[in-house]
């Protein structure tokens, strides 16, 4: 082990990326991938807060079957904005742009991403797009749902064009991030960092980058056509002018289904890191996990039609899409089984990131399995546009990606700020989030199966008990998130100093100081062991040294 070579040797080496320069300008013009990650952290979390408040208001409205808090029109705008913000401004950029930007270059032994200027540009594009979306929200009442289905979206009043254009701009941010990571992973790995020595988080981000690059442009052109249709009436989606509105759905989902994997694959990458670290055991089935990420990225392009089983596509297409949808269960299952096998006979410790990992395993599996219900054509006809689908995608997106993201935040927080969070409050927040999440969304499966339609403002009284449970759950969830936010914010400045490697992990970011020096490595690191060789290398948590 040569971890000692990365240690500070001179007093001036205590300079880190946070204190190397100061002032607003040094942040707004930074080219350092770590600082750009921090910029993303604050802007994305602001959007998460906003989208979350909208969700809380909607849940409050649904406490009773009638109008409780707002008008039906306001409610329609709220679910549109909640969806658009959470998908395009929170989940899609969350893991790659925050944690990927911060950790990925260090994990492969690079000093920065391949294109630092493009990286900073992607943040400005993100802020511009989000700003325009906020303008659309304030200026004009978009209530199309985040899917912008035609013909409604081309005919309804309100600033749909501004909103759609905002999403188009946000797509560029995503493309820039994808291009940057693919090039970085191909060209900037340190000597000895072979593909099979890369951490699985890197594999996850790589597969994500491929989808970002291949799928996002198709969404871009679809949104351009939607804008042209609305602004100039080109008639491409208007049946009275020889156009076809279903074509919009095809094109929209050709991006937006792969986008689901843009959201989940980085989360799966985080889980692979956390589960090995906190089981203190070599990851089981490294190559299977790595290749299953690529397999998911590949399959993701062949399943979009399962969003359209009742939209009037041919029965033949429906059968093929149903079959291809089932195939996605195979690589996903491979991952889950490998994670569970990694834990088997491991020395598991239950720090906060591990609690989120276990939550992920539980909730993501429920989300994945209910996806199989929905992929079955006969069952789907009954469940389409009910709360069952709302529950399903929240179990995958929030129970999957966001749980992994929270775990990753806690995990890398000491590295980002050089300070530890409070473990006890971390555990309390994880517990509240687990209970609150399940209480919020599990009743939705029940009422959805009974026929409660999604996006409805009023509902029959027989569903009220589930709605009340769900709203109660949302308060517990919010309490958990609030505690988590306070815990993390408190740790930034007032937490105890973090060690170089508080978890005893083996990936490269834990071999350098916390917080990392401006250029990550004093000298080019040598790779002498794999990222999960817990069987060969002993690293005690909190210690730098190691024996073989």
């Amino acid at each position, binding site marked *: 082990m040569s971890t000692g070579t990365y240690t500070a040797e001179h007093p001036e080496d205590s300079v880190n990326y946070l204190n190397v320069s100061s002032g607003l300008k040094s942040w707004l013009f930074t080219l350092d991938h770590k600082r750009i990650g921090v910029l993303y952290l604050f802007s994305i979390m602001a959007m998460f807060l906003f989208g979350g408040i909208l969700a809380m208001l909607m849940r409050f409205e649904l406490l009773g079957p009638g109008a409780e808090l707002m008008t039906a029109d306001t409610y329609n705008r709220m679910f549109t904005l909640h969806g658009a913000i959470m998908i395009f401004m929170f989940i899609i950029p969350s893991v790659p742009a925050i944690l990927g930007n911060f950790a990925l270059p260090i994990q492969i032994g*690079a*000093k*920065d*991403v*391949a*294109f*630092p200027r*493009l990286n900073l540009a992607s943040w400005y594009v993100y802020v511009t797009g989000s700003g325009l979306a906020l303008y659309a929200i304030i200026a004009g009442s978009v209530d199309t749902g985040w899917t912008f289905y035609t013909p409604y979206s081309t005919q309804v009043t309100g600033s749909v064009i501004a909103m759609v254009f905002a999403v188009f701009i946000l797509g560029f941010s995503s*493309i820039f991030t*994808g*291009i*940057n990571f*693919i*090039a*970085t992973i*191909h*060209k*900037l790995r340190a000597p000895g960092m072979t593909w099979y020595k890369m951490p699985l988080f890197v594999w996850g981000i790589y597969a994500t980058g491929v989808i970002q*690059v*291949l*799928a*996002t*442009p*198709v969404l*871009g*052109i*679809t949104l*351009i*056509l939607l804008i*042209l*249709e609305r602004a*100039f*009436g*080109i*008639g*491409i989606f208007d049946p009275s*002018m*020889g*156009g*076809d509105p279903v*074509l919009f759905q095809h*094109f929209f989902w050709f991006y937006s289904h792969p986008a689901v994997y843009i959201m989940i694959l980085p989360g799966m990458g985080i889980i692979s890191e956390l589960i090995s670290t906190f089981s203190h055991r070599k990851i089981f089935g490294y190559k299977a996990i790595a290749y299953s990420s690529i397999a998911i990225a590949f399959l993701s392009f062949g399943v979009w039609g399962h969003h359209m089983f009742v939209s009037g596509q041919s029965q033949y297409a429906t059968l093929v899409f149903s079959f291809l949808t089932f195939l996605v269960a195979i690589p996903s299952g491979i991952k889950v089984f490998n994670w569970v096998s990694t834990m088997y006979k491991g020395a598991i410790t239950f720090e906060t990131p591990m609690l989120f990992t276990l939550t992920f395993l539980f909730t993501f599996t429920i989300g994945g399995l209910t996806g199989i219900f929905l992929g079955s054509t006969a069952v789907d006809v009954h469940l389409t546009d009910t709360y069952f689908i709302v529950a399903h995608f929240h179990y995958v997106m929030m129970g999957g990606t966001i749980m992994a993201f929270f775990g990753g935040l806690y995990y890398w927080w000491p590295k980002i700020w050089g300070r530890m969070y409070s473990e006890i409050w971390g555990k309390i927040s994880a517990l509240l989030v687990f209970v609150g999440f399940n209480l919020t969304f599990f009743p939705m499966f029940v009422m959805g199966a009974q026929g409660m339609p999604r996006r409805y403002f009023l509902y029959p009284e027989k569903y009220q008990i589930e709605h009340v449970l769900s709203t109660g759950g949302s308060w517990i969830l919010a309490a958990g998130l609030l505690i988590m936010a306070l815990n993390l914010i408190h740790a930034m400045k007032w937490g105890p100093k973090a060690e170089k490697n508080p978890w005893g992990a083996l990936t490269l970011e834990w071999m350098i100081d916390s917080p990392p020096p401006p*250029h990550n490595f004093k000298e*080019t690191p040598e790779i002498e062991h794999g990222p999960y060789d817990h069987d060969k290398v002993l690293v005690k948590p909190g210690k730098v040294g190691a024996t073989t």
Partner: protein
Amino acid sequence: MTEPSGRPAHLAHHFSDTEQQRESAKLGMWIFLLTEILLFGGLFAFYVFYRAWNPDIFYNAHVHLNTTLGAVNTIVLITSSVTVALAIRSMQLGKRRKTITFLATTVALAGVFLIIKYFEYSHKFHLGQLPGQYYSYAGIEGTNPHIFFSVYFTMTGLHALHVIGGMVVIGWMLYRTIRNDFSAEYYTPIENAGLYWHLVDVIWIYLFPLLYLIG
């Protein structure tokens, strides 16, 4: 052009050598071109659907396009692809003045393309051969002949925007060459701008037969 450490001035801190920097930049550019292909790929898919659904309209409407002007524009763009390639080659050989000439020629040819396109467009505007609800021309048989012009204007319009983008990029390269940024050792940005320009050219090579030479 070299710093005291022996690193060339154009080499960014996070690359270990010029070769790594060059390869990264080119890979990034190729991936970007891939996204451009998929952007236009969506439009080509729309083209396929609407032509399959309305074969007669596409045939009847396309005869109103000016094949001669389209062909001239094809030649103009192909020539500009040659000149940009020559510009790269000249810089590889360190011939800066030639590079400047070829880059300027490329920008000029792109301008010629846009001027010809302008005359084509304004003629159609004049006749009312416009997309969607603005269509007012009466000389084409079949229902919804405006569909063809919706497809035509969307595809060629997006392509024209890319031509303008290409002019800006190549113009920037021209400025940087004049400023003496490049040498036989470092010409990656010109090379990447050339790659982009070739893509714009290739897309037109598909657009021309698909729109002007139906049937």
